[in-house]
């Protein structure tokens, strides 16, 4: 491709890159600054609904060196929105197929796929990028990359600060966030935006089901364990889902409950969130618009003032941008321990269980220490065994915890993090 053609090809983008506008009058539009976009290395996490869109949008925003991480393979239910995949691609790695497709369509862009988990890479890997864009459906993965990027910041090295742009969707709703690690509120600071769904009490499932969901959860949690029809439950295996569906249907019939369907069974067991092409297009493009603005200064980006854009499209169209504050007691970017109010007569087990549903914690496998002693550790098995007897002890009378004591909680999902609390009693 000749130079003139390249210039002509990117002329629309160049209009706004070469000409200063009223809202970016201090921007640098020298050839050198313009060159930086093509040189920038950008990381995309997730090659699913958002990821496919993000790769397309970045490639057509002038980014030429893109990496993408996704461990998943393509499923037939992806095809209604993950537009880089075809029926013949079912079963292949998402990152690989998506990268190859966009490389082929948009000449001159290099996309490197990684078919693995984000946790498989260390800080050295993440250090090579200038911007990270996330299109994930897992809160846990978001928290992990957020903690990693915040921990990487070295105040003496400007390049260690990687802007994190995070998109998320659910049905007709979505959000875009821009985070400058350590400088602006991080994902952990805003964790209470995601409220974990309250679980149905086990006794409801076991004795007094009322809803089709109760019958399905019963089949999933109780009947499966009792009967073990297959060695391990594979939520993507139709035979396994069919087994659960039949169990749930039988139970529903027994109690006179209607509404158990295959689709509902699958939805409950896999916790399926509705997803459509249009919302993904909106949120991914909004993320990439922010990435382009950060990389080129062609217009002011979200981040330092307002950092959060919320989108809702089921009742008309509504978007708004918010300013969040950094939390001084954030476990990732804060400096101080959080206050934690508990009932002194509760058991350690109750306390640990409560961490799973606490909106600002959401820890599934917590271990806990107090000042100098280990109260309970999930790993290794020998310590777990030694500390297990503490689980049924009460906090104050048995374990001697008191007001003002500091406790520290960790979870294998976030190895870099310690959640510190100062106790007070109800």
């Amino acid at each position, binding site marked *: 491709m000749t130079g003139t053609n390249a210039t*002509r090809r*990117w*002329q*629309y*983008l160049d*209009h*706004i890159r070469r*000409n200063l*506008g*009223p809202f970016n009058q201090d921007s640098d539009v020298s050839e050198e600054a313009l060159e930086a976009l093509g040189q920038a290395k950008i990381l995309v996490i997730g090659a699913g609904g958002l990821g496919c869109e993000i790769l397309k949008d970045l490639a*057509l*925003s002038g980014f030429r060196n893109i990496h993408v991480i996704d461990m998943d393979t393509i499923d*037939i*239910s992806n*095809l*209604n929105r993950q*537009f880089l995949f075809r*029926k013949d691609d079912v079963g292949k790695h998402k990152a690989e197929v998506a990268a190859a497709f966009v490389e082929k*369509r*948009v*000449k001159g862009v290099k996309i490197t796929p990684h078919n693995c988990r984000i946790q498989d890479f260390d800080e050295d890997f993440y250090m090579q990028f200038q911007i990270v864009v996330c299109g994930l459906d897992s809160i846990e993965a978001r928290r992990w990359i957020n903690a990693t990027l915040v921990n990487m910041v070295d105040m003496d090295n400007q390049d260690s600060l990687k802007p994190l742009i995070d998109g998320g969707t659910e049905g007709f709703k979505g959000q*875009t966030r821009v985070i400058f690690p350590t400088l602006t509120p991080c994902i952990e600071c805003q964790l209470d935006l995601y409220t974990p769904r309250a679980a149905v009490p086990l006794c409801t499932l076991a*004795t*007094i089901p*009322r809803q089709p969901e109760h019958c399905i959860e019963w089949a999933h949690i109780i009947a499966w364990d009792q009967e073990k029809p297959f060695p391990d439950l594979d939520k993507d295996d139709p035979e396994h889902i069919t087994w659960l*569906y*039949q*169990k749930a249907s*039988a139970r529903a*019939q*027994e*109690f*006179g*409950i209607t509404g158990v369907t*295959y*689709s509902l069974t699958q939805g409950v067991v896999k916790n*399926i*969130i*509705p*997803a*459509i*092409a*249009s919302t*993904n*297009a*909106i949120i991914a*493009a909004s993320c990439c*618009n*922010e990435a*382009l603005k950060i990389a080129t200064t062609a*217009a002011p980006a*979200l981040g330092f003032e*307002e950092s959060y*854009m919320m989108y809702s*499209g*089921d*009742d008309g*169209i*509504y*978007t708004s941008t918010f300013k969040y504050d950094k939390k001084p007691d954030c476990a990732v970017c804060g400096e101080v321990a959080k206050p934690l109010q508990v009932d002194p007569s509760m058991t350690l087990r109750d306390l640990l269980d409560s961490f799973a549903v606490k909106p600002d914690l959401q820890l599934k496998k917590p271990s806990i220490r107090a000042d100098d002693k280990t109260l309970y550790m999930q790993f290794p098995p020998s310590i777990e065994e030694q500390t297990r007897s503490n689980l049924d002890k009460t906090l104050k009378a048995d374990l001697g915890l008191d007001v003002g004591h500091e406790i520290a909680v960790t979870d294998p999902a976030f190895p870099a993090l310690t959640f510190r609390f100062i106790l007070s009693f109800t």
Partner: protein
Amino acid sequence: MAEIVTDQTPAVLRGPTEKEKKYDRQLRLWAASGQAALESANILLVNSGAGTVGVETLKNLVLPGIGKFVIIDDAVVSEPDLGVNFFLDESCLEKSRSECCTNLLLELNPEVHGDWYPKNKEKLDLRYILNSSGPFTLIMYTNPIRQEDLATIEAYASQHQTPVVCIHSAGFYSYFRFSLHGTFPIVDTHPEVEKTTDLRLLQPWPELSAFAQEMVKEIDTLDDHEHGHLPYAVILLHFLEQWRQLHDGKNPTTPNEKKEFGKFVLSGSRTNNPEGGEENFQEAIDAINKNIKVSELEPGLKEVFNHQVSSEVERQSSFWTIARAVGLFYQKHNCLPLPGSLPDMKAQSSVYVKLQGLYKAKARKDAQEVLDLVRESVGGEHIEPTEVDLFCKNARFVKLINAKLGGPDLGQIFNAEKADDEAAEAMKIETGGAFSLPLSNFFIYLALKATAHSPVATANEIINTVTQLIPQAADYERMGQIAQEVARARGGELHNISALTGGMVAQEVIKIITKQYIPIDDTCIFDGISSRSAPHRRKHPEFALRIRV
């Protein structure tokens, strides 16, 4: 724990079909009925200019499976297209843009059909194509557009009552505007589930009262298990009854009375247990505020009840026939037909299922009464009972789009929006930046619209065009800045802004085709600099602004 695990399974146990698997994530939003509507849709795109926003919109319609689309575009693919349009590649250079985009879009979904025009190098005859490849469910056109093409589209659309959307994307800005030709009612609006609960605690029907009375007949001698499993609806009905006996037959209405009523309910809870209370009583207390209130008509339904139909055709449409019947029902009973769903509440399975059955039976009875009224009206004999059921179930949240006529003119809107901007600035200064209101997107609309037929305009030319309509616009600094920003793009599209706008337009088209959720009424303007969109509503023949907060 129930130990009985039966091996008998229901007769019909069907797994999903291939198509249901593919569309699973969207069927959970608009169900088979919405999908069927999409699959019978035929969408036209009249494309022009940088040509990306319309194609991105189509992408988001082809993926979920519209029946057919047609692209009309007489452009030949050139280098700048390849830097902005994903549905073109180098092999497309010098070829017909409509043909190339159609082919690459069709790769996304083998179930969708597509066609393009013009077929050869012949001169584009828009009128002929409109008449030969329709009828269209909806027409989309993008700016810039030739005046005569726009006139052709508008004439066709108004003759066939076809919804039209105009889309304009340039630089960091975009807008789109729907013209729906008359009122557009939506029954299946999908309100939030929490809002739809209707327990009729203040207007219980005889069967419900009898059921509750029977359960609490000997409330004090019930064993702890039974007492702890009284459904909260029954608890509230019982304590309301008691409350009225103590308060001259009146229900608790003021916040204070409701608080007192809460304490009254709590006093009935048994505390001689390890938990020191009962979950079902707590559920009852939590349900007081939402469920113990006189239901008022939602503004949307009020508008439906007060609407004057404009023609005999509209009058005899099934929507308005059923709406009139529901109106009569409301006049007679002073309440709407019961939706019939019962939220989950702590209860014994058999009790809950019985209570659920009562609500369902009452809903069926109400729907039958509405159906009888429908049958009595002219044309009502052909209306399907399922349509009446759907209306009754959703009656409270039925909504009219494009219902209002008249309103202030452009200049008046301009003044109001400018005043709002100034108030927002003042607020920002007053609070030291701690509190700021968003600025109006209206001026973006004006500046973009000024380039609807001539994309490459200078800021001065844009201001000149705007001031022909609104003389005072020349004096507003922000109007000037926005004109500069539009001029900066020189009619070029940014892929991100077009992808985002294409997502929003597709979403609205889906709502209009499926008649589900609530479509925008009627203009949306996006500012990619501040990352905000704002809906505007155009009121014929002038503009009126309605920013939803």
